[in-house]
Structure formats: structure tokens, C-alpha cells
């Protein structure tokens, strides 16, 4: 029976020759992830159940990133509990502040070589779907599912059907993967892919960098999708050779392909060349407008970073647009490198000097303001252009604040001009 790419990976992990949409399966997992918000409740459940050992200390990643460096006593207690558990169970992939490999979970896991094509991954974080960029099946779950998976290395899934996103053409300069996914969410809505996979395919894939694919898959959940998924190509292999040389050397991954006659719930065609710089207005990621189609909106703060856009490529892009320019008077530009590795590379490449000259503040790697944790909370009535993934009511602070989601170029132009703006409006 013909299967989608997601179905191929799930069937292999369930030990079945074939699966079909709607089927309930139990699947073996290659990697299980938790963070400082979701792991502490999972650990509590794990211990309350009298469990003593994890299924494999090499296949559990615990990443303190949401409220770190610890923002208050309660957060510190949560991180301490996670740290004790990681040490007690001798987990290989626990990353402390400042350590090489530390940072925002969905930035560091691929960078640390923990994700490869064909993997099945769950994480107690909704943006776990990011890893689909590397041809892996990855989806978010809650803390109780995390506890069960840490103990058994398994979980149950309902096999999803897929929406096929057929990409053609090439992005115009200044337009990024973020604009692609915002455009798609604007088109199908925040529940447009509910319970389904978003499978990207077509000749347009080859022109998208891995950073752009990671951004696109990261926000699959914002369309309600279970996972987002790209096919494996030369760009994927080059990424793996750089970040996951051990798995490449051991040939420790499997490349699956969707069957040519696989059935899809629907197919959506996107011409990448037709996509323009896009912004999602408050308070849903589906409220998208193209730059140039609205009246000026003054901005108080701009945030560049997060699991969506905190990679080295994003920081290079920010430096490109900020070089020789100044942040608008009275506006705060906060830049959060996504990982210690990104931080070090950005420093080495001189990007921080460009940011500092422009009048930006550079933070330690953290999720921080994205979820209204710390490092840039908004007051009532304040507006923020952010390269993060959600603009719900109260997401970055006061319930009467507003978040406008955008890609890095729009964030930079907005920081310089003091209003929601595209790069076309910047002086040459």
C-alpha cells in the first residue's frame, strides 16, 4: 500500500510493513526530549510511578532553555530537579549553561548531531516538529507522554494523513523561509493541518537552505500539524556531514521517500518566487499581511532569535541588514543567539560588533521573551516585532501587548525604522 513519507518512517518504527492514516500504532523512538518547563512534571510522574531507570541514557536529551539562566527561585528549583535527574540517570545529552552544545533545544539538537533522516523523535515541546527539516519524524507531546517514553523508549501514535506542499520557483532576495511558513499558515489557518502532516516537496525544495527548512518545519505546529517534513537531498547530506559526522561515518540513518502514488488529503502549490515579506498580526499566526499592505504601525521592541530564527544564518542575515545602520531612537532590539555554538561563531565573525554598533543588546542563548519568560517582557500597550513563532494574547508579556511575527529582514527593517517595515524601505 502506498505511503506518505511520515507513514514510511512510522511503519518502520512500529515494525510494520505498512500503516494507513487513522491506524493506532506503538512506535520505537530514537530520541526523547524535555526542557525545564516540561521535564520537571515528567520527572515527578516518573518517580511517582516508582520507575528507577530510563530506557537508554544516550537517547534522552534534557535541555534547560526556557527560563534559563534561572529567572527566579521557582525556575531555579525546576532546573535543579532536572539537573539532579540527568546526573542520577547519567544522561549523555544534558547541556548546562555555557557548555558547548548548550542553547535553545531545537537549535542545539540538530547542531549536536542528535537528529538524522528517518529518526522518530518526540519532545515535550510543541516545536519538536522542527526536526522534520532533516527528514525525521518529530512531534510534540506533554509531560506524561515524556515520562512514559523516558521509561520505555516507546509511545503510541495515530498515523496521520498528509497535506502535500508542492514548492516551485526560488525565493526573491530579502524573502526567507519564515515568509514561506507565515504565508502558508495565512492560507490554511491555525488549524488548517490539524492532526495531519505537512510534507514539503517539489523542485523548490532544493533552493531552500537547511536553516530555512528548520524555520518552516518549526512552525508546522502553528497550522495545527502533527509534523512537518522535508525530503532528504544534497543540502541535508551536507548539513549532516558538518553537524552529525559520527552518524554519517557509521551510516546510522535511513533515507525514506514517499511513494509516488501516496494519497494526500490535499495538495497545495506554492510558487516561492511569488512570496513577499510577510507579517503575522496579533493575535494569531494566521493573521498574515504582506509588507506594504497596511498603514504604519509604531514598534517598541524587536526580538531576533528563538528556535524559529536563532541560527547562525539568521544572525548573519541580521548583521547584513543592520550593518552601518542604527536602531530607531527609543526602540529596544534584543538579539538572542540560539546556542552557545551560534554565539561563539557570531562572535568570531564579528557580528556582535555590528549589532552593538547598531544599538542592539545581545543576550545569552535562551527562549526567554518568546514565551514571556524573561529577557524582554512587554508592558501594556507595547508592540514587538519578533522572529519567534507565536503572537497569542499575552505571549510575550502583558495581555494588552502585541506581537507581530516576521522573518529576520523585516525584524531588522522594523528596528531601524521604528515601525513594522520591509527591507525595501531601508535606505541603500
Amino acid at each position: 500500500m502506498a505511503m506518505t513519507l511520515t507513514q514510511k518512517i512510522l511503519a518502520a518504527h512500529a515494525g510494520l510493513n505498512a500503516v494507513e492514516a487513522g491506524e493506532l500504532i506503538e512506535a520505537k523512538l530514537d530520541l526523547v526530549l524535555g526542557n525545564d518547563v516540561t521535564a520537571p512534571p515528567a520527572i515527578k510522574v516518573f518517580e511517582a510511578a516508582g520507575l528507577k531507570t530510563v530506557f537508554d541514557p544516550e537517547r534522552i536529551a534534557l535541555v534547560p532553555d526556557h527560563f534559563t539562566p534561572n529567572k527566579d527561585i521557582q525556575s531555579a528549583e525546576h532546573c535543579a530537579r532536572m539537573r539532579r535527574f540527568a546526573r542520577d540517570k547519567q544522561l549523555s545529552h544534558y547541556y548546562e549553561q555555557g557548555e558547548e552544545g548548550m542553547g535553545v533545544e531545537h537549535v542545539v539538537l540538530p547542531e549536536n548531531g542528535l537528529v538524522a533522516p528517518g529518526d522518530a523523535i518526540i519532545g515535550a515541546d510543541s516545536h519538536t516538529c522542527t526536526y522534520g527539516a532533516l527528514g525525521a519524524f518529530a512531534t510534540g507531546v506533554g509531560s506524561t507522554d515524556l515520562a512514559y517514553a523516558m521509561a520505555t523508549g516507546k509511545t503510541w501514535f495515530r498515523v496521520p494523513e498528509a497535506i502535500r506542499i508542492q514548492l516551485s520557483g526560488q525565493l526573491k532576495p530579502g524573502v526567507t523561509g519564515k515568509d514561506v511558513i507565515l504565508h502558508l499558515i495565512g492560507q490554511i489557518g491555525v488549524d488548517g493541518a490539524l492532526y495531519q502532516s505537512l510534507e514539503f516537496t517539489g523542485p523548490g525544495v532544493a533552493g531552500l537552505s537547511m536553516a530555512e527548512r528548520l524555520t518552516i518545519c518549526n512552525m508546522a505546529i502553528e497550522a495545527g500539524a502533527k509534523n512537518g517534513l522535508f525530503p532528504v537531498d544534497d543540502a541535508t547530506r551536507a548539513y549532516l556531514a558538518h553537524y552529525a559526522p559520527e552518524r554519517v561515518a557509521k551510516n546510522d540513518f535511513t533515507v525514506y521517500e514517499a511513494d509516488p502514488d501516496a494519497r494526500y488529503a490535499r495538495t497545495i502549490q506554492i510558487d516561492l518566487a511569488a512570496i513577499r515579506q510577510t507579517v503575522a498580526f496579533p493575535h494569531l499566526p494566521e493573521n498574515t499581511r504582506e509588507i506594504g499592505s497596511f498603514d504604519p504601525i509604531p514598534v517598541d521592541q524587536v526580538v531576533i532569535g528563538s528556535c524559529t530564527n536563532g541560527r547562525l544564518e539568521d544572525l548573519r542575515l541580521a548583521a547584513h541588514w543592520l550593518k552601518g545602520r542604527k536602531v530607531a531612537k527609543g526602540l529596544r532590539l534584543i538579539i538572542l543567539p540560539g546556542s552557545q555554538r551560534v554565539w561563539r561563531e557570531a562572535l568570531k565573525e564579528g557580528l556582535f560588533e555590528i549589532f552593538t554598533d547598531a544599538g542592539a543588546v545581545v543576550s545569552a542563548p535562551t527562549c526567554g521573551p518568546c514565551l514571556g519568560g524573561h529577557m524582554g517582557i512587554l508592558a501594556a500597550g507595547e508592540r514587538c516585532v519578533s522572529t519567534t513563532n507565536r503572537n497569542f494574547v499575552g505571549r510575550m508579556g502583558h495581555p494588552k501587548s502585541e506581537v507581530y511575527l516576521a522573518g529576520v529582514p523585516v525584524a531588522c527593517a522594523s528596528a531601524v525604522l521604528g515601525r513594522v517595515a520591509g527591507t525595501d524601505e531601508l535606505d541603500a
Partner: protein
Amino acid sequence: MSIQGHVFKYGANVDTDVIIPARYLNTAEPAELARHCMEDLDPSFISRVQPGDILVAGANFGCGSSREHAPVAIKASGISCVIAPSFARIFFRNAINMGLPILECTEAAEAIQNGDRVSVDFDTGRIENLTRGQTFTARPFPPFIRRIIEADGLMGTLRQLQGKGE
């Protein structure tokens, strides 16, 4: 198993950030989370909700984060059941795992109004609007989900199994 209560009705895409804002995620204590439940959508919710009351909402309830704190906060606030045309998938999973009954029923979610008194029978999926004399049928839970709800969540079923020495 059946419940009865007054309805709090909200719109579509009620997200996990309004169910329990992330600024309160530095705790995982149910009673503390409940104090802030729905705070950014309806600040008066927590002072008005009574044990047994029912949430009715539009499509895609619980969209956003994977935080299990969301169904925990709703349950600890006293809400006995959520009825909506559809639920975000991680919320759906978490609600079952936490023992918070949720029912997908478009007709009921549309017809039931704020303040109505409603009863729900989880065994049959029957939803009765006692205020308006209307009846709806949702797909009832399969037996294994009913066992999870009755055991107060997935871990409750594990404790029951251990209690029986299985």
C-alpha cells in the same frame, strides 16, 4: 459516568497561553496553576467557576504549546469537561493523559450558550442542554480512554495496575 454543570463559552482557537500564561509555568502545582486559568482571556473566570462546570468553545481548542499545565489548570479549576468542534492534537493527548474529559461535537459547541446548564454522559456521548431542552451526541470514549478518565489520568491507570500487582 456523567457530569452536570453550568457552561462557560468561548470562541475558536483558545490557545494554551491564555489557558495558562507561560509566566506562571515556573510552577507545576495544580492549585497554583488553577488560580491563573483563563486569566488573559477572561479574568473573572476563576472567581466564577464552580466544581462540575463545563467549558464549551470553538474549533482548535488548546492550540499552541505542549504544556500539560493547560489541562491540569482547567481540571484543577473545577471544570469537569470541555466540549469543542476540534482540539489541537497535543492538548487532546494531554487532556486524556491528565484525566480531563474532552468531547468533539460541532453541533453542541455551536448551540450551547454561555450560562446554560448541561449534562454529559461519557459512556454514551450524550450531551443534554437542560436549559434549552436540546440533546446532542458526541462519539463516546472507547473503553481504554474511559478507564484513563476514571483513574484520574494515565498515571492513575499505572498505579491501579501496580496496586493489583500486575
